């Protein structure tokens, strides 16, 4: 019990220090809020978050629907879902960096051999496609987890509802939109908040695959903070950025606990 108290104090201290020490006045904040590089990185983070979450949710939902059916090999498929999840993010990043390689990458080779492109493309050196390479690496890793969470949600929906709907003459699509999706909403919400929080962590993939480039196209907010603090050694500015991130995360964490509260009621 003493340990637990000690431990909780220790935690509080750590977060407090992180918020207290860098308080060097509001000049940094004003500068950051005025700078275009900050707002651009916020925009990129938002773009990354929205695009990857939409793909992950939609793909994850269909995978969950698939695995909710009974068929041969379902167990094996479900185990396979753990593969991307278990792979360390850094390994995920070098793997996709190598696949999207401009001169020798498997992605180029594949597209060329099936005849979609006739010359190898430099995917990672064009701003627009580089961002989508990073998103692809993230989507591949995270979609299986989303699918597992949604699958668990699906399995809590009583079968009788579908049987009743079938008797009433409702087709597959109609059951999907009128039963499955509404009843899955709480799970969707939880996944949404969790993934939004994760988006502020996106660093490893960007660091390894693009270093924020080309032309800052993939410089998301966490990478900007890292650069300010540890490349330009501007600790004050970096810390102010960190504090802004903290505020956003606090807000999201609050929303998260509230959405969980709702789920328990339901």
């Amino acid at each position, binding site marked *: 019990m003493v340990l637990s108290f000690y431990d909780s104090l220790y935690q509080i201290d750590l977060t407090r220090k992180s918020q207290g020490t860098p308080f060097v006045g509001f000049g940094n904040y004003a500068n950051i809020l005025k700078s275009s590089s900050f707002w651009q990185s916020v925009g990129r983070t938002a773009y990354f978050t929205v695009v990857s979450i939409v793909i992950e949710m939609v793909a994850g939902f269909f995978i969950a629907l698939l695995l909710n059916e009974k068929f041969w090999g379902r167990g094996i498929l479900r185990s396979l879902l753990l*593969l991307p999840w278990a792979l360390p993010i*850094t390994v995920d990043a070098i793997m996709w960096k190598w696949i999207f390689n401009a001169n020798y990458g498997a992605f180029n080779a594949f597209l060329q051999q099936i005849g979609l492109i006739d010359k190898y493309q430099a995917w990672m050196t064009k701003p627009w496609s580089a961002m989508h390479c990073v998103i692809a690496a993230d989507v591949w890793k995270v979609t299986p987890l989303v699918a597992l969470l949604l699958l668990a949600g699906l399995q809590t929906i009583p079968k009788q509802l579908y049987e009743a709907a079938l008797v009433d003459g409702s087709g597959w699509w109609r059951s999907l939109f009128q039963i499955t999706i509404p009843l899955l909403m709480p799970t969707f919400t939880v996944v949404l908040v969790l993934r939004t929080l994760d988006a502020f962590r996106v660093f490893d993939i960007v660091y390894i695959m693009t270093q924020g480039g080309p032309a800052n196209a993939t410089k998301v907010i966490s990478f900007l903070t890292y650069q300010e603090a540890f490349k330009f050694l501007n600790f004050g500015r970096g810390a102010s950025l960190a504090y802004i991130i903290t505020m956003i995360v606090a807000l999201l964490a609050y929303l998260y606990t509230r959405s969980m509260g709702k789920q328990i009621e339901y």
Partner: protein
Amino acid sequence: MGVKKRKLMRSIVIAIGSIILTTVLIAPPLWLVISSVSDLKDLLAIPLRWIPQQISFERYAKILFSQGPESEFRIIMKNSLFVASLVTIICVAIGSFSAYAFSRLRFPGKEKILFILLFSYMLPPVAIIIPIYQIFSSANLLDTRGALVLVYSAIIVPFVIWIMRTYFDTIPHDLEDAAKIDGCSSLSTLFRVILPLSVPGIVATLLFAFLMSWEEFFIALILTSSPAAKTIPVAIAEFSGRHSIDFGMMATGGVLAAIPPVLIALLFQKYIVGGLLSGAVKG
């Protein structure tokens, strides 16, 4: 629209879906494994040869047994193993006691402390790294494995408490009351009744703590620089810069880093899936 036709449609959709899903899940890591054992000539060939003409495990041997510059990777793997194991032990030891307290005792500010715990776990590392860096640099602990163990424990313990608490909450109070009537003290109730019942939860958290510290990259990147303290993710990131010509070597490092977590995930999948769901969905 006959029932038969509908059943056939269903089978076709399932078959196509499964095939696509399997391919997408397996192809990228498989390519990483192939890259690690094929000759560089095959990898750089255009058009690309998907199946290597000969397979060699030379790169693995180089990393695991040779004395050359690649032997550094061996030390780094040991660092990772050391850090991850120690963090796991610390977190589960502290975390399960605290979680029991949070689950069973009533004390002022409990809800608030729980929220702070959850919050401190959710904070992205980038938000707390600067003070951490300053603390360790003033304590002369930069570039040591101990620093990593401390920071990881501080981050992972809240997570362990959060998950274990939900497990403890599912164990009925009646069991403890019965144990107390039979003369058990609080501690021996915990050890004889509660802990044996929560083995699945403990195993799951053990594995999560291990996996999280095994793959953590950002903090390790900032706090460590020499091979004496570096962990695998940092080495991998360097590989991708330094060995940017020898893709095979990069792939080999990646495969080696991925083997322990992937094995763990597949061997203990029941516990892991259970843990994922109770941690993320039920709260």
